[in-house]
């Protein structure tokens, strides 16, 4: 990752292989966590009971859930660590941090939806919706890990904390799980699959590449920075197919 990317035809490199693999890891662990967790939360449903018995019983399900949780925690910590180190060493832009512009963009887009603006907000590498999703999952994930540990080791925790923390952790764990689940089910799945702009699938996180059209439409500020032009000029001046581009540092 030296910051040099060749534009192959109309595609631009958006995610490194590390991020592609990281996403696969998150998909797998969260799918397992949701499957084994939701069936515990909604234990009274026939489907849950069928699933739990298929997995060989509640003890097995709890075991799978806890160790997958451990795996998820490792992924989350490495994501944070890699991000912090990358920013500290100056290799990446802190592009995931929420700024004042994100709030403005959100208001701008709502105005745009209602027809008060002609253009949608011009976003950088990550738009405010992507940031919202990332931070919700990151903060939610940390909450899940903390409460998960409390539920895993209740006797150890009650050596220090009052017993009430155990059922409180349980309430938080299952409520936060619902929040993350709904966010993913509604928001992320819509944005990457069912949104008219992405349908049938936004492949960039799997291939690592994004089309130039989408780049200009969705991340015009980043693209303009790559091109070294003002964002307003992008629409008039679309670069040719074979042109080699000095791509900006693909921060985070």
């Amino acid at each position, binding site marked *: 990752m030296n910051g040099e990317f060749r534009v192959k035809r109309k595609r631009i490199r958006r995610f490194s292989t590390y991020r592609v693999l990281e996403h696969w890891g998150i998909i797998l662990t969260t799918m397992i966590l949701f499957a084994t967790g939701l069936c*515990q939360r909604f*234990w009274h449903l026939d489907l849950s*009971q069928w699933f*739990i*018995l298929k997995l*060989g*019983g*509640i003890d097995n399900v709890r075991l799978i859930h806890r160790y997958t949780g451990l795996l998820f925690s490792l992924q989350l910590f490495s994501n944070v660590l890699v991000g912090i180190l990358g920013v500290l060493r100056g290799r990446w832009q802190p592009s995931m941090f929420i700024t004042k512009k994100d709030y403005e963009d959100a208001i701008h887009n*709502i105005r*745009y*939806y*209602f*027809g008060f603006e002609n253009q949608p907000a011009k976003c950088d590498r990550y738009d405010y*919706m992507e940031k919202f999703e990332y931070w919700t999952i990151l903060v939610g994930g940390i909450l899940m890990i903390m409460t998960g540990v409390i539920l895993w080791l*209740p*006797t*150890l925790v*009650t*050596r220090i*904390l*009052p*017993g*009430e*923390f*155990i*059922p*409180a952790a*349980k*309430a*938080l764990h299952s*409520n*936060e799980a*619902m*929040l993350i689940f*709904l*966010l993913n089910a*509604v*928001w992320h799945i*819509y944005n990457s699959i069912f*949104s*008219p*702009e992405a349908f049938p699938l936004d492949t960039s996180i799997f291939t690592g590449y994004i089309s130039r059209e989408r780049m200009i439409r969705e991340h015009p500020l980043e693209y303009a920075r790559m091109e070294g032009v003002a964002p307003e000029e992008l629409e008039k001046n679309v670069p040719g197919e074979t042109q080699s581009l000095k791509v900006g540092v693909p921060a985070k």
Partner: protein
Amino acid sequence: MKAGTRIRWTLALLLSLLVLPAAGGQARQADESGASRKCLLCHGKKGIVKTFLNEETVEAYVNPEKIRASVHNFLTCSECHSGFSAESHPSGQYKSRDQYRLRSSSICRRCHSADKIKNKAVHATLLKKEKLGVTPVCTNCHNAHSVTAASGGKIFSNEKQYCQSCHQHELSMKFRNEERMSLQVDLAALDSSAHGKLRCSDCHYGYSSEEHPEKRFRSRREYVIASSESCRRCHFDNYTKTLDSVHYSLLSHGNLKAPVCNDCHGSHQIAHISHGVKGGLITTQRCKRCHPAVYETYAKSVHGNALINEQNQDVPICIDCHTAHDIQNPMTMAYHEKIPQMCGNCHANPAVVGKYGLSTDVLKTYLEDFHGVTLGFYKKEREELYKPARPIAVCNDCHGTHNIVSTVSADPASVKKNLVKRCQKCHLDATEKFPSAWLFHYKPSLSKYPMIFFVNGIYRIFLPIMWAGLILQVLLHIWRYAVNR
């Protein structure tokens, strides 16, 4: 006697020549001899009373109808009452009614010799006793003047009376181990029992006025166990249930102390089913006979105390948890898993516990918590995956089993101390803060467990708002996209 026989034979011969098939019948029609008719002139009317030396009396009335229908209708009165005739009517002096009856028996034995009657078990037994000096009295069982054919109608108006004619007396039965058992039956008690309308042979099958087989049991206990088999003829459902019970299992392993039907229900004094306090008390007393220690513990518990001292009908008695007939081993996992439902039968029913100010949420709060959910799954796993389950704490693990005390009056400090000990059975490294991880059946509220109440409350508000916001954003996005096109 000779004259009567002659007449009978002559008539029989004459009539058999005319109507052969009716021969027997006609022979029986032997007219009462002139002598007998004369006797009946006085004795056929009520009112004549014979007084014995000890002031006992007997009515000297003879029902002419009955004697005509009896097997002895061909006899003249004087054939039994020898010495009596129209001319001679000696006034015999007897000490007592019993003495008179004894003497009468010796008249019967003139024709019905020991050799002739010994083939019947009931007679054989009596004859054995005779050798020991106890003379049997024929009229104890057979009526004097209305004796009917053994194969014919009954002497008594019902079987119970027939059996009672012997079994009202102090008879006893000896077992091979020299134990004895009284065979005396209290008719009044029997009549007022639940089985008052049954005939003796309904239970004592094989016995009748004709059959009285002698049975030899090793011991009284073996007899009781064998008799309990009678119950299944009518109570097949409950009998079948007992075959699955822990009591039957003990019995089948050779433990003769294991209770059978009559140990709990009795034999001749089977009580009517009583759902009242009295019935409950009686039932617990029955169990107490073999389980005295458990009973004592129960009697001191909140349930037992209310039953015994307050005549409370809402509290559970032994059979409410253990059932009456298909009593299961309470140490099994299957029984353990049933306990929350067992307690819930009352404690989740507002009609039962509502009036005592007890919460009916106790079952729900248990079942929805970690232990309840795990218990439910362990049960399913055991049944469907044949997986051996670990015991999970159920109601009695914290509240006790037979020694349940009221949680209202209990000292909270001691409850908590005991609770830690219970938790440590499974959670080995639990400390004294650990039990408070359990919410003691309370639902989180502002006053109870506010932390959990707030966590749930925040999400209850935040989740729908976020959900609605995201949906709105999606819809607006689609709408704008459609408008742009």
